[in-house]
């Protein structure tokens, strides 16, 4: 399709130009393979700096400190979109301190390496962790205080309980993060939801990021209440988890397109409030990318399509839950299928293996350029400065990509 031949397997001997690889392949081959000038790969070598929860929190914390030093406290608060997170077991001291300072709050424990909602649970009291799994009679001595000892025992027993038999053969301890659970999510129809937004990064140095206009809100199948902490299904809105919930109806589709959500919120809160909300989301995308800008190994062969998971709270503040490097491209409905097809097509247009674009485009299909070594304005050209700055971001806005692509390619041919 589009004049490309699929190559059966990307062994180093065979010549290939474009590889939509999975992360595993990347880790295995990338360092050893020699890549021609024109070749493109869909991941950055160390994307995990952004996409693994414990690395992300580390990078964000560092970036925030830097921002505070350079630009002051006010500017640094723009980074406060990530709920308080502690890596486990490394930072359990700090976590316990925070935990004790705020009794009665709810925390969520997530494994860093896994996705699709596996291995996640919530707790309010430390004893919940203990009661959550049957305690086995194995003890490890770490030579620490009683309290720490207890925690570490629980920790390792948990590990045991959570791992499958195969995994138990491995000796590594799985890393988790404990994150402050957002107890006041914005609800629609009594249900919690999160947003999946797509951001394409074609280069980190300089930073060039595109935001896709379409996306969706994923609803929990059940009504939200803090009383049912054990109900895995209420709190996790990943479609993968919802699929196994007892009353899940696959035909129903627990998703809204972002356009619908934007309209609903505008009808309820007015256009100005919603503009602020979406501007805050743009801020999340940019700042998170900036925080890893210096760490990611920038390679001109690489690009990456990220799936951002955002949660909105009742004060209409958006929170970053996580960033996915391999966002699910499986479709749960016809509408979903079309979105993902178009997303991929437009990604390929931007990667531009055919070399058709000039590099000065601000919009390609459903993607709008939101950052190009600096903020991108809606008005004017990429190089020129305009007096009034309106961000070139159109999340949840009308996506007439077919028409735009036609016009774009016609003007490029001319």
């Amino acid at each position, binding site marked *: 399709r589009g004049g490309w031949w699929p190559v059966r397997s990307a062994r180093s001997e065979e010549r290939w130009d474009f590889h939509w690889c999975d992360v595993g392949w990347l880790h295995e081959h990338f360092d050893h393979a020699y890549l021609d000038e024109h070749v493109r790969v869909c991941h950055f070598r160390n994307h995990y700096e952004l996409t693994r929860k414990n690395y992300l929190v580390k990078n964000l914390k560092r970036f925030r400190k830097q921002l505070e030093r350079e630009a002051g406290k006010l500017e640094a608060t723009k980074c406060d979109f990530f709920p308080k997170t502690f890596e486990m077991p490394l930072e359990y001291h700090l976590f316990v301190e925070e935990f004790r300072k705020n009794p009665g709050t709810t925390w969520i424990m997530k494994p860093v390496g896994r996705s699709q909602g596996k291995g996640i649970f919530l707790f309010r009291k430390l004893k919940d962790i203990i009661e959550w799994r049957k305690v086995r009679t194995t003890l490890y001595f770490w030579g620490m205080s009683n309290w720490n000892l207890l925690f570490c025992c629980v920790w390792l027993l948990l590990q045991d309980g959570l791992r499958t038999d195969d995994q138990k053969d491995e000796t590594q301890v799985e890393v988790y993060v404990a994150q402050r659970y957002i107890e006041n999510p914005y609800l629609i*129809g*009594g249900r919690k939801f999160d947003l999946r937004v797509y951001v394409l990064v074609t280069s980190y140095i300089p930073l060039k990021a595109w935001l896709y206009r379409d996306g969706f809100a994923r609803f929990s199948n059940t*009504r939200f209440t803090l009383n049912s902490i054990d109900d895995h299904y209420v709190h996790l809105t990943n479609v993968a988890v919802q699929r196994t919930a007892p009353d899940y109806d696959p035909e129903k589709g*627990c998703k*809204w397109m972002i356009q*619908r959500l934007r309209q*609903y919120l505008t*009808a309820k809160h*007015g*256009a100005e409030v919603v503009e602020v909300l979406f501007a805050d989301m743009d801020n999340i995308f940019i700042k998170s990318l900036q925080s890893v800008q210096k760490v990611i190994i920038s390679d001109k062969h690489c690009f990456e399509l990220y799936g951002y998971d955002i949660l909105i709270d009742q004060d209409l503040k958006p929170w970053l839950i996580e960033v996915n490097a391999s966002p699910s491209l499986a479709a749960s409905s016809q509408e979903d299928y079309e979105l993902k097809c178009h997303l991929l097509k437009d990604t390929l247009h931007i990667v531009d293996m055919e070399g058709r674009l000039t590099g000065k485009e601000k919009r390609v299909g459903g993607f709008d350029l939101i950052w190009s070594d600096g903020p991108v304005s809606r008005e004017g050209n990429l190089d020129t400065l305009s007096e009034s700055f309106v961000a070139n971001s159109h999340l949840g806005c009308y996506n007439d990509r077919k028409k735009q692509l036609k016009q774009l390619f016609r003007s490029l041919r001319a």
Partner: protein
Amino acid sequence: AMVDAESGLSLTIARVVQRLRGSSLHSQLERQARVSLHKPEIKLESLKEDIKDFLKTSGWEKKLQNAVYSELNVFPSPCHPAAPPEHMKEPLAYMRKAQGSWEKRILKSLNSMCTELSIPLAQKRSVSEQKELLNKWNEMGTDEPDLSLFRPVYAPKDFLEVLMNLRNPNYENGEQPSFRNHLGLIQVPLKVKDIPELKEDFSELGLNIGQLGIDDSAQVPPEFFENEHVRVGQKVLAEQDSAAAQQYVRQGCPTALRADLWALILNISNQPEDILYYEQLKSNVIQHNLLVDSLIYKDVKLTASNDDYYFVFEDYLYQVLLCFSRDTSVLEHFAYSSATPPKSYIRGKLGMEEYAVFYPPNGVIPFHGFSMYVAPLCFLYHEPSKLYQMFREMYVRFFFRLHSISSHPSGIVSLCLLFETLLQTHLPQLFYHLREIGAQPLRISFKWMVRAFSGYLATDQLLLLWDRILGYNSLEILAVLAAAVFAFRAVNLMEVTSLAAAEAVLADLSTLKVMPLLQIFLFATVT
């Protein structure tokens, strides 16, 4: 003629006064007037004038104006003073008769379901049941009662069969159907508008006039129309003028202003007494279980819960519809509806009028798809009592006409005839072709019109359509849109060879843009 106009006017005035007398607005005005007596600007010599001025400046006159305007919109103009009350319901005898027989059939169906399942029509709940329901009030959707034995009392297609068999006994039409007659399914001689008349009525939809749904698209700079339109809308809301709002929404409502504008047009203000009334209805639901409740549950589960966008609002739908069934104030609309509420008798007292009650208490038996009337409103209103009032008002002004047999221009019979006539007149080839292959167009478009397109169009498009229903105080736009949809897909429809294939071409309306379709059909098609 002069005398008739005058007497007509005084009849109207008398009726409006009678309706407003004793209303809460009346007592509020009285109170305000009394309070104003203490004000220094009110002088004894010019008491009447001063009080009038005071009411004007304090905004109370506007409220009164809105209430009067509302009354005028809802009630039809009175016919001859000597006309019997049934004429306000429905002037044509054969229509009344047909509605009566239809109602008998529905009631028979309901009663037989009742007997089959041996479930009483109404039953008081036990204390523990009441408590349980109260706890679950905000999440009734999680309940999974066994509804397999219940079936909807009727579906739109059953109703269509009845309408197809309507005949005016005074009208002798022995000729075979031909192009000089009507080729469609509806065979009653009601007067419907043609395109020139529709163009005049819907003049604000003209090509030269800005519309939301067309002139607010991404390509058009907002300075051309959108910004000014929003500004005007804000002004209308500030003035709190119902009539101005109704005129304004003919060009569409900005999303952020729609909820308030619709409430202004329907004169809904969610006063404390309204909230109290809703709470009262809620307690009625808690205390008694009605058979129709199961029908409502079933309908919501079958329709709204399976909709990609409305499933989120499932709980709100129960909260509205269960209360709606118990709302006896809805009975008032039967004064101008051709329908009559079904009567039921307390057990053992069959036929004794003293023991007759309306069943359900609001006199409206839900049918398959009924919950879709409420679902779009959930996008706009989130406070249960306000959502409830908006739905109730929409029902007693508009929706009831879509499932009762009458000669009213906004009644479903007229809409069907209007649709068929528009199609036969302007797309005769298409109409003839579809008829020949056994795909009478009304068979496909009927369900769209009965539901006012809810669940068929994308939500934002549906709301733009309902803007115009409110703006023009008429449902005729539904028939025009239905014809416009056929016109839009005419090329594909000409190629089909079966009803099923025609249905397939028209199965998915979710990508349609309503306003361009209407504009093209009314103003840009060669007549």
